[in-house]
């Protein structure tokens, strides 16, 4: 076990896989000599050589297309898209090619590629360095979308993604890279060093895709979250004294439906939180699934707390961001409604 930041854990995952499998290589903008703008690939070119870790042209569609071609040959490329905000030029390649190749070729070709991309706000990145595009990928059948919230999971999920024979998008909550940020923007974030999930085993291990984890066991309300919002939800529960059960989904495709059902059936209440805008967001899918599978267990309506339906505003970042106060308020309201039997407004 070693204490690591999420950046170090991701770097370690790549290092382990580059060592273990000669078919693994990684490339993207600034990832080679420089080691990536967030340092995730630092030292990998020096250690593993130029052809295992190299810089790519500023052409996201070309990066993903090239990765698909490499995957068809038999390699396991890991491509970095520098910010999830810049993944859209590659959208056609992801949707029309990577996601469908296995299906349309009758299984003759497939796309064992991994696309890593930092996502989410909280770094004063404005609308071009803050977005959370997970819902648009979740909507595309054939793509898997993974979102870690701790260094331990980041390493295990990235290794599982690289070994997966389907295309996997790993969205890395960049606000969590250096510490378990809980939404309190006015306070310095504590690092990962003292966090139990900042302890990362050496070498190879996997966190299977499609397995949620219980970040906090509780009985009052189930909170469904992923990425940064897991830590915000934990903070909100603490602040409000609500005995919330916080489920960290870890991957939204495949989704651990069983974990969701068993928790909501136990608590009888469900709060969904994500940083992305609410309308058409992944929370809507979660709400529909909870309604379908847990309707007779629900004591109050399913509630969502999300980013507002605006672009991510630079000056109003913390107004947009669904922080612990907003999440806590929703938790309280659910708690009160359960106690009084009054439905939420």
């Amino acid at each position, binding site marked *: 076990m070693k204490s690591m930041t999420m950046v170090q854990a991701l770097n370690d995952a790549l290092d382990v896989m580059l060592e273990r499998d000669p078919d693994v290589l990684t490339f993207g903008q600034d990832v080679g000599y420089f080691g990536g703008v967030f340092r995730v690939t630092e030292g990998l070119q020096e250690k593993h050589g130029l052809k295992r870790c190299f810089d790519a042209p500023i052409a996201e569609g070309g990066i993903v297309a090239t*990765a698909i071609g490499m995957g068809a040959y038999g390699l396991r490329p890991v491509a970095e898209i520098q910010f999830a905000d810049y993944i859209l030029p590659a959208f056609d390649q992801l949707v029309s090619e990577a996601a469908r190749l296995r299906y*349309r070729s009758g299984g003759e070709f497939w796309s064992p590629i991994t696309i890593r991309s930092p996502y989410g706000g909280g770094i004063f990145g404005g609308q071009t360095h803050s977005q959370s595009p997970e819902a648009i990928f979740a909507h595309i059948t054939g793509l898997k979308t993974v979102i870690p919230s701790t260094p331990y999971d980041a390493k295990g999920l990235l290794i599982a993604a690289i070994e997966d024979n389907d295309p996997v998008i790993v969205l890395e909550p960049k606000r969590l890279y250096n510490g378990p940020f809980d939404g309190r923007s006015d306070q310095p974030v504590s690092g990962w060093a003292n966090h139990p999930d900042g302890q990362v085993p050496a070498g190879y291990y996997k966190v299977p895709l499609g397995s949620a984890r219980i970040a906090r066991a509780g009985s009052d309300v189930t909170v469904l979250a992923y990425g940064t919002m897991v830590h915000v939800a934990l903070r909100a529960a603490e602040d409000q004294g609500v005995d919330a059960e916080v489920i960290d989904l870890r991957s939204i495709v495949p989704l651990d439906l069983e974990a969701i059902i068993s928790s909501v059936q136990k608590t009888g209440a469900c709060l969904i939180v994500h940083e992305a805008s609410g309308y058409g967001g992944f929370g809507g899918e979660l709400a529909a699934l909870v309604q379908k599978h847990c309707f007779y267990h629900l004591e109050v309506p399913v509630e969502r707390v999300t980013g507002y339906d605006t672009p991510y505003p630079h000056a109003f970042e913390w107004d947009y961001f669904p922080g612990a106060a907003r999440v806590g308020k929703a938790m309280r309201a659910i708690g009160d409604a359960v106690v009084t039997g009054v439905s939420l407004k």
Partner: protein
Amino acid sequence: MNSEHSPLSLHVPCPVARPGGAHAFEHLDIPAAGTVARPDALRPENELRDMPYQLIRVLDDAGVPQGDWCPGLSPDTLREGLRAMKLTRAFDDRMFRLHRQGKTSFYMKCRGEEAIGVAQSMALGREDMCFPTYRVMGWLHARGYPLDKMVNQIFSNAADPLRGRQLPILFSARNYGFYSLSGNVGSRIGHAVGWGMASAYRGDNNIALGYIGEGSTAEGDFHEALTFASVYRAPSILCITNNQWAISSFSGIAGGEATTFAAKALAYGIPGLRVDGNDFLAVWAVTQWAAKRARANLGSTLIELFTYRAAGHSTSDDPTKYRPQDEADRWPLGDPVERLSAHLQNIGEWDKQREALLDKQLDEQVRSAVKQGEAIGTLGQSKPPVGEMFEGVFETPDWRLEAQRREVEGEP
């Protein structure tokens, strides 16, 4: 508007001739066969920069090979090429009729472009991979892909190798070096580059050949693929099939008025060759040249295959609505099948009797394949089991696909 300057006017390209008018090819600069010298395939790119503006031709109008691009193929190879080209055409004609009879939903013909898929398929190796467009079916015919399997795919019947998932002719045939086709144009040219890079990464010597239409060179995919091909010296031959028409848009809408499509290579620092795409020998020769270069680790070559789409875009298209009716027949570079046949006859290796016999054999071969396909079922008469619809989305279906499959299969 500033009155110091004269008003601007917007240029919208228009083809020289439209329906009702006669064909007009005077604007095309078509040199005589054999006039373009063949540089050594290992020459540095900066010594090849005049190549994209020329037109490499081997067979002259009388079917006689000219100049140093002549690949010197054996009569057996030439006859094999002719057979595959004629098979491509015979198969297309039969499938087109089956579409008109309602036996399938859609079809696209390769007419006029048969030399391309066939010559390139024969010139490259079994371990190489082609990233096709939908008009290079000759690649498969040259490699003996079973016709009945093709028919089954076109009928989306129970024996369809693609399990009823794809439009007719959007094949995939990995064992024949034929990558999965898609109806999205241009989106696989970058895959050809990545595939070639992977071969180089592994230290193999396989090369990729990617196709794109001249219309689709306008897509960002094309330019990104050329950037990657250039940057990483990918062993990938990138081919632009310039068949003059992208559905109803003439090549000028893709930039063809301003320069040649082969010249797009110049800005990327890779060689660009422009070749008579209706000349089996010339297509073979340039492919061999580019393959030699790629296998010598000198990277990609861009090839413009200058040809003409003699049929409509698809069964849904009527080209008489946008181009002169006689344009296809008057194409100055002729018909690729007739030209190769004339060449073989010139060298005394072919004659009308043998050609008639071959036509009869091919017709029987196609009829027999269609019969086999029809016995299984035409479109809608026969399908793979519906539950298979949920397979292959992921390597292993997740819970929602399993539940949806149970729903469709009618299980409780």
